[in-house]
């Protein structure tokens, strides 16, 4: 649905050039919710703005719904933008207009007949749960309600793609959740392709199917959310994953790690999918002459797949512990020794 092909964006500053995007290649399929994560200044905003040409790439191609949008005339581009909705961090609503007029605006710009506009806007406001706010002004709404208006407005022209520019970054966690659920609903009911940029890994975990990690204008890691979360390859991806997975080892455990010897060894065990449900540890305790002590654990759900992370201490004879490790390796889980000098 959206293809970035070698997209590069360079800003010409007074002193030096800034490369905001560096040969970015991304493929976003129809109906997908695709998240792009990165720190501020990583080039996320430039990336999403290249889709509807709020910013023009310096080189490369952007294909949206089969159209090379860089080759469109001004008129064709305006036409194309009707099938690309966009919502913003600060909502960007018209403060001087009612909720109704805000949502109707894209239709009014397209000269759609009044009665059709009314029907469409009423439907949209009902869809986002603001049917009773049609005559309110944006300053009478909460942040979450404003973003709902933004979503309704973005959907007015029945787009095929929805761009979300840090859409939840100005909202509190509760509201963020409800807005993300609304986006999920939009995705499911209209089979809309959604591109989200964010610096919050929670957003990616909550609703994205795929994720790309952007660092200094380059895509350093991309794949399904499950793969990136369960096996992040780059340091930056690991940091982002850690920010939501809470798998860092607590200080108290860390002290124990320092004190480990042959008889007390500490391991991290990662369970994925069905293995998360298997009674691995109790089996070990029964079959081997070791004591199993769970120091820390967390289980998260990713894309409906359980993902567990346990830090355990094995007390016992070194040979016996090695046999346990062998046993675990035969299962569908990952085990790694935790050392004092690495987390």
């Amino acid at each position, binding site marked *: 649905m959206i293809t970035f092909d070698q997209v590069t964006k360079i800003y010409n500053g007074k002193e030096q050039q800034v490369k905001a995007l560096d040969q970015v290649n991304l493929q976003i399929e129809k109906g997908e919710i695709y998240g792009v994560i990165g720190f501020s200044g990583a080039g996320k905003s430039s990336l999403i703005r290249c889709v509807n040409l709020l910013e023009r790439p310096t080189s490369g191609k952007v294909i949206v719904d089969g159209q090379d949008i860089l080759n469109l005339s001004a008129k064709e581009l305006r036409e194309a*933008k009707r099938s690309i909705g966009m919502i913003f961090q600060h909502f960007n609503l018209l403060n001087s207009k009612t909720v109704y007029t805000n949502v109707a605006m894209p239709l009014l710009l397209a000269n759609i007949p009044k009665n059709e506009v009314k029907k469409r806007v009423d439907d949209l406001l009902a869809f986002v749960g603001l049917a009773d706010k049609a005559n309110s002004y944006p300053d009478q709404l909460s942040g979450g309600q404003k973003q709902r208006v933004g979503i309704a407005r973005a959907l007015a022209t029945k787009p095929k793609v929805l761009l979300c520019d840090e859409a939840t970054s100005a909202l509190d966690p509760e509201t963020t959740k409800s807005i993300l659920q609304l986006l999920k609903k939009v995705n499911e009911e209209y089979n809309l392709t959604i591109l989200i940029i964010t610096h919050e890994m929670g957003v990616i975990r909550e609703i994205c199917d795929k994720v790309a990690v952007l660092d200094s204008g380059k895509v350093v890691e991309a794949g399904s959310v499950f793969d990136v979360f369960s096996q992040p390859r780059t340091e930056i991806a690991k940091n982002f994953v850690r920010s939501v997975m809470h798998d860092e080892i607590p200080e108290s455990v860390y002290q124990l790690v320092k004190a480990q010897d042959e008889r007390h060894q500490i391991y991290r065990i990662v369970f994925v999918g069905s293995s998360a449900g298997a009674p691995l540890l109790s089996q070990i305790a029964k079959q081997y002459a070791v004591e199993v002590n769970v120091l820390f654990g967390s289980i998260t759900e990713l894309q409906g797949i359980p993902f567990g992370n346990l830090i355990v201490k094995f007390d016992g004879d070194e040979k016996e512990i090695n046999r346990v490790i062998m046993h675990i390796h035969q299962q569908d889980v990952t085990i790694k020794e935790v050392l004092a000098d690495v987390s």
Partner: protein
Amino acid sequence: MLVDNQQIVAALWETILMVGISLLFSFVIGLILGILLVVTRKGHLWENKVVFTVLNAFINIFRSIPFIILMVAVIPFTRLVVGTSIGTAAAIVPMILYAGPYIARLIENSLLEVDPGVMEAAQAMGATPWQIIIRFLIPEALSSLLLGITIATIGLVGASAMAGAVGGGGLGDLAITYGYQRFDTTVMLITVGILVVMVQGLQSTGNFISKKIRRR
């Protein structure tokens, strides 16, 4: 008192006429120039360095001439337009030249206050530059724009009184000819009083309407 009520009413009417007509014209000129000043600047809808630089300089020149001098300086032009250089009609010409660029600056200011995010949303929706100006820029700036127009109108009331110095008619003329030159303190007080009430009324009305429109 050297003047009767009828003369005062006539003078008041002349002032209202001068302010009203010059406001109308200078508003149209100011609106066009103000919008151009905003949309031709760097990174805006119709970025155009030449137009912006020329316009900016032109407005600054007019803004830097004191009204009393402007009035005298443009006499040939005034004569060309209305056929005479004295009287109410003749006063209106320099008043328009004075207030037009002033209003342009005020409108520029109001339009620049509009959240760039709103403009971005408009562009993302596929609005034409014209639609952006009419449907986004002006409505969002309207409340602040109205306060600017109020300030300009009050400035014009002041200018109209000054026009009295060169025989422009109106309350200023009355105050100078009778109140100042013939030492009639009553006429002076009455004209000043009327001007004060007028300005108060204009400002309150402007504030009231602007507040009604403002939605934030």
